[in-house]
């Protein structure tokens, strides 16, 4: 207890005191372990979180004491059809009394009754009587089996909560078995939960009255619907890894053999005064250099590489909206790509092989190849 900050303890105690109608000092003493807990304290533990979840917004702190509004009193009279003896006089729809019996705030009970009456087309009084009376026989077994209620699936969560809530009111002893935590550990937690939703007086609750309302019904469908055809798969290890390893070895082998056979070019030392003729860029830029001999540098040196080469290529997935990957469906895309690739390859080959001194056109078989980068490949 000592590790809880003072202000939190204080707030918790105040809320609990307000809910239970006992002095703050007494609650504080209980919480710090100086006094024996009030009997209710143990009974409240099971609904630490469930109550807050079921009815998060019920600031009507004083249970069963809300004044009935005039509109309620002018509600149509109902015939007391199946009203049980302990349901009392229902003709004037005394929501306060009914709420006291149902163990829930009058405002909630009224709303629930009215909504149900509207939905079923009956009178509020009849509905109230039904709620208070008809369900009475079903209650004892429900209250007697709290563990089963806890295990209920999502769809009945609100119901389970309600039953757990009822337990401490009806029979505190049975509820104690539901408590998951030891009393000392959850004492302060119990206090905050009480603050969220105060309880009615224990003696005012008739048996079998449901104090919950239905929040939602979750259908028994999966949230994610996976629709994939079963495909023929193999383990990455070893099937894919062995392929990759083979590729890796093959590349290394080719590279080593090539490097043993072919010497990388190293011409004479750089000389600013001796411009070689022709001067050629690396082969992957030779297509551009070739373009430069046809077009203005603004076009060949800038527009083509940046607009077509970079922006154009990056934009391909956003321009090509055809969802199909079948070659027969994307003839235009394939044609365009092939066209540009062939164009680039042609220009590059032209630049490498067919350009001689002064970057003039030459036939490689007549005048030789003017490309020092691959000198040894050519002279091999």
């Amino acid at each position, binding site marked *: 207890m000592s590790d809880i900050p003072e202000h939190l303890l204080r707030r918790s105690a105040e809320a609990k005191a307000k809910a239970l109608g006992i002095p703050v000092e007494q609650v504080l003493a209980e919480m710090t372990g100086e006094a024996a807990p009030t009997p209710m304290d143990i009974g409240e533990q099971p609904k630490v979180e469930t109550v807050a979840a079921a009815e998060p917004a019920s600031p009507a702190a004083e249970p069963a004491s809300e004044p009935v509004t005039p509109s309620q009193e002018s509600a149509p009279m109902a015939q007391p059809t199946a009203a049980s003896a302990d349901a009392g006089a229902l003709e004037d729809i005394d929501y306060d009394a009914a709420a006291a019996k149902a163990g829930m705030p009058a405002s909630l009970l009224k709303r629930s009754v009215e909504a149900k009456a509207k939905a079923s087309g009956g009178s509020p009084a009849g509905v109230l009587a039904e709620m208070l009376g008809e369900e009475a026989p079903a209650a004892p077994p429900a209250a007697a089996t709290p563990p089963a209620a806890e295990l209920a699936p999502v769809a009945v969560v609100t119901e389970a909560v309600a039953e757990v809530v009822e337990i401490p009111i009806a029979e505190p002893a049975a509820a104690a078995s539901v408590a998951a935590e030891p009393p000392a550990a959850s004492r302060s937690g119990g206090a905050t939960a009480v603050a969220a939703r105060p309880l009615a007086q224990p003696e005012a609750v008739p048996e079998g009255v449901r104090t919950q309302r239905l929040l939602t019904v979750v259908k028994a469908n999966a949230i994610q619907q996976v629709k994939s055809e079963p495909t023929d798969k*193999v383990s*990455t290890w070893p099937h894919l890894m062995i392929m990759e390893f083979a590729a890796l070895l093959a590349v290394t082998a080719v*590279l080593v053999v090539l490097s043993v056979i072919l010497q990388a070019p190293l011409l004479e030392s*750089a000389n600013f005064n001796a411009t070689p003729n022709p001067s050629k860029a*690396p082969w992957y830029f030779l297509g551009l250099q070739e373009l430069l001999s046809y077009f203005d540098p603004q076009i060949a040196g800038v527009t083509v590489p940046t607009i077509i080469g970079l922006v154009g290529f990056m934009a391909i997935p956003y321009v090509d909206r055809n969802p199909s990957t079948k070659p027969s469906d994307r003839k235009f895309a394939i044609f365009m790509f092939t066209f540009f690739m062939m164009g680039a390859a042609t220009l590059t080959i032209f630049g490498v092989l067919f350009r001689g001194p002064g970057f003039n056109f030459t036939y490689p078989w007549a005048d030789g190849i003017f490309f020092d980068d691959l000198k040894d490949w050519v002279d091999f």
Partner: protein
Amino acid sequence: MANGIIEKVKERATSIWEKVHGSEVAESILRPGSPFKKGYSDTPRNRSYVIMNNVLYHLHPVKVKRHGVRLSYTLCLGGISFFLFILLTITGIFLMFYYAPTAEAAYSDVAALSTSVAFGSLVRNMHRWGAHFMVLSVFLHMSRVFYHGAYKPPREFNWVVGVILLLLTLLLSFTGYLLPWDQLALWAVTVGTNMAGFVPVFGDQVKFLLLGSVEVTADTILRWYVLHVLFFPFIIVIFMAVHFWRVRKDGGISGPL
């Protein structure tokens, strides 16, 4: 007699290996399912563990489509590009030991690699041809991705990253081109950077930024050296990490699994 000694040595060696292989250190190094772990058996569970319990899980899922593994389908071009990058890094580090990026030393250092450094010639050749191969394999990788329509949703952005990687590959290759400081390097770079000078409005500034001068000079060599060995590798590794991550997240090799 001799056979007996050999038997004994073999026995001792086996028992030592057993102890080392089963030791706490070996157990801690090899994660469960490693094929090198003691007592590994070729079960479907262990096959999954090899990938799942491993850094490889960043690159590959546990299972892949059977048709995606066919050699004629995958060609492994992306993997080869990555492997060439690693090879180039290794050979490049070797070359850095023998190379000073100054106008006085650069050429003689490269020349000395071929004559007075053990395996110097081989490593330099591997670096140079490997660089050409990498440009080629990245380009082919891009072409194959296009022809398979593999850039289509959800992989649009990974295509964009791929184009950036191609550009970075070209820049890496081009910055390395100058470093031997021979006639070929000097004038190829002069031609290449002249193209950069045609950038509209601030072409001269771009060229100056690239060269550290108005023309290719001795200053350019240091600048391109730093770009080549540090800056562009740093950038390309970041983009590769994103690229590989997106390959996994966008559905792995050859379509969503």
